[in-house]
């Protein structure tokens, strides 16, 4: 295997490095960048724990070869909070009791974030669809859906002020 050059943006920072060609974006983020908020739950794109936002879209980072992310703009859960200040979505997850064991949480938050970037006022059914690629075994999803609904209401109310 020949190492290949990689250049991409992760959480706003440009990274230039050499990578093993058979690394997954997931491995690169976890092992090279130590962004361990990106979780591996199944390795086959079924659980969504490894979800990151790549070029504006939620993707399973276990199904992306790192070379395919060349030139991409990648956002992980670590990139959401600014200077320790939680994003409204993260805060809403906490406020609604949507975090239990927490293992699905980063992926869940990223899927929700991707939804809100595309559609700032989704319906309950659109929220459920957007989160349907993220398995959670603890919450039964109800508080997670409520958290996303909550942030829409809150942001709506804040901007109306």
């Amino acid at each position, binding site marked *: 295997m020949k190492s290949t050059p990689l250049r991409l943006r992760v959480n706003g920072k440009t990274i230039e490095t050499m990578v093993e060609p058979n690394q997954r974006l997931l491995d690169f983020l976890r092992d090279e960048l130590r*962004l361990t908020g990106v979780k591996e739950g199944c390795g086959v794109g*079924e659980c969504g724990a490894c979800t990151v936002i790549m070029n504006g879209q939620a993707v399973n980072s276990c199904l992306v070869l790192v070379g395919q992310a060349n030139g991409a703009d990648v956002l992980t859960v670590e990139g959401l909070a600014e200077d320790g200040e939680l994003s409204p979505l993260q805060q809403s997850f906490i406020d609604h009791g949507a975090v239990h064991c927490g293992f699905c*949480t980063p992926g869940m938050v990223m899927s929700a974030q991707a939804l809100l970037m595309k559609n700032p006022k989704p319906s309950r059914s659109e929220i459920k669809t957007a989160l349907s690629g993220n398995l959670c075994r603890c919450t039964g*999803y109800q508080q997670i859906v409520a958290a996303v609904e909550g942030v829409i209401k809150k942001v709506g109310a804040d901007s109306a002020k």
Partner: protein
Amino acid sequence: MSQFRSVNHPVRRVDAYEKVTGRAKYAADLRFDGMVWGKVLRSRYPHARIRSINAEKARSLPGVLAVLTAQDVPGAKTFGIVVPNQYLLADDRVRYLGDGVALVAAETESIAQAALALIEVEYEELPGVFDPLAALEKGAPTLHAEAPDNLAVHHHVQKGDLAAGMAEADLVLEREYRTQFIEHAYIEPEAVLALPTHPFGHYLTIYGSFQNIYNIRRSVAKVLALPLNRVRLVQATLGGSFGGKDEVMHAMAGRAALLAQATGRPVKMVNSREESILESYKRHPYILRYQAGVKKDGTISAMKIEVYADAGAYASMTPFVTWRSVVQATGPYQVPHVRTDIYGVYTNNTYTGAMRGFGSPQVCFANESFMDEIALELGMDPIEFRMKNALVDGSVTATGQVLNRHRVSLKEVLSQALEAVQYQDKVREYRRFNETNAEKKRGIGVAVSYRGVSLGGEGTDAAGAYVSVQQDGSVIIHSGLVEMGQGLRTIYTQIVAEELGISADRIVFLDTDTSVNLDSGPTVASRSTIMGGSAMKDAAGRLRLTIHGVAADKLEVAQDDLTGEAGIIYSRNNPEKKITFEEAVRHTALRGLRLTELGWYQGPKVSWDEEHGQGDAYFTYVYAANVAEVEVDAETGQVEVLRFTAAHDVGRAINPENVRGQIYGGVAMALGYGLLEEVEMDKGVTRNLNFDEYFVATTMDVPDIQAIIVENPDEFGPYGAKSVGEPTLEIGAPAIANAIAFATGKRLRELPMDLERVLLGHSLRERRTKRGSVER
């Protein structure tokens, strides 16, 4: 207005910030300098003798540091909490496909993986047994020398005179139900990181995804031939467990420790999802034969129950799981004459053990389906039938226990659930719907339960707590019971905050470490709040006495006149007389008084007479009622759960939002149990090893859930709290089964009620020859 200031309020989770930012470290996220990777070679056959193992080629692969087999285990070859018959590494025999045969440590994970393929194992395949009924037949292949009949355990309950009870009956009904293998499906696969013996401290440290951390330590110490004080386990943030990260972690921690000792390097092991599903234990499949004698007026006169549980290859928790089943098998009803027998049977399937519910989901499915079937036979409304036989205050259970120490709230929870769904209106609505629709059918179904809280007659039941007030008034607490997502840290923080009269954000919860915490037994049986919570209350309460004593002195008031709230200690009679919590703490410290307390709580007395199958099995019980509303596609077998309502008496909700979270999560898991999930074992070979074929319910499958919290404070619980974790998933499946029967007129007696069963009444199985290959 609540009488409480922290308890009984929806306080935010204390561990949520770390988790929502991705900073929380789970075991697979940890790394140490010099770390190497461990991998397990697992069996090729469900049952075989190992003729020889040749690891030469594997050892000579560059980057490989160690290849170990059973002969390298320095201490006991086996472990197990009840019956120690599970091998850390297979000795001369493999008993299921997940058995470990050899270990590799290598510089990288891919080298370790490659080395596994180079280990040559010569097997002699043995005939296997894959069905508990077949395993009990004479001449069946056997698994363990100490169980020549393959019987892992037999429990019974005997009450009254069964023959007389049946003779009194106007109707005797008999039915058989079957349940399936269930995977815990925690989203975090198992992981450990073992550090070799500390050069100065002479102890091993193992970080990992541990649930029952003291039991795991016991096994590791045993196989390594080390005293307990030289094995230190630290729990990493746990990504879900549901009863699952116990024995599989005994093996994993023991193996990693062995490799760490052999290489002198930190060893990390992480299971892929396929490895996890292949090796880890499951919830038991049961075969349940129910017989009941009923009078015309709907009174149950007798029940005879026979249950066969597939224990798989090892005992694991089967003896305890089946004991809860035998105690609760007749459900929350008054039955004068009872005979229940349950057999746990060894087979060459994946072993089965603890999973949320712990022997109740199976008997609840059978019994609550059976109750509807009996009502139908009698021409009685299923609710009326349940109400007629329901346990009430002072009732005697099947095990002869008089329920007189707590409020028996079965009728209350059922009434509240029915009222919330407008049950009778729904019945009429769905009947009308079904008259005019051919393709879609709707139904409503109910199920109820009672459940013994904590360990009961299983054994010693006690828990400790550590609460330490620092000189600035901040507080450190820790516990030997563990957080696994259920919210324990938040609950304990609230309890300590309540007792000390401070806000929750002044309390820090320390990580769980076997060498620091008080051994509090396993974090199981929905016992954390009632047991550990009581211990926290004990410790914090004693600290309050100390600190308030000093405050009373300073303020020159009687100590029992003082109360604490929001960090202020003040006189109830004269609120102007007050002192801040910090100030009071500072004075307490200056006086040289102790600001750290160890709390302890011993469970109230229970009893069990195994010979006679009678006893006061649990010191208190919780009650629940669930209502499922479904729409069945009569032409495809697809079932949509339209709405789900769950009423639970929890004694007291320490954190109502957290209780609702437990209910939502339990219901979703119950929905999977009822409709979607099954680990398919084909002659000992697991066919679905990942989430593409093992179906966990998604956001789209779980309906809106209405959670109803009922509070009847219990004399034994902290602030009256009992439990909520497990009861939330034990009756969802029968409620759905009853709703499907309402909708279609067809009774399904096997789980899961998947497309084929709903449409055809039976399952269809593909005959595949694919081996359970471990993928990565």
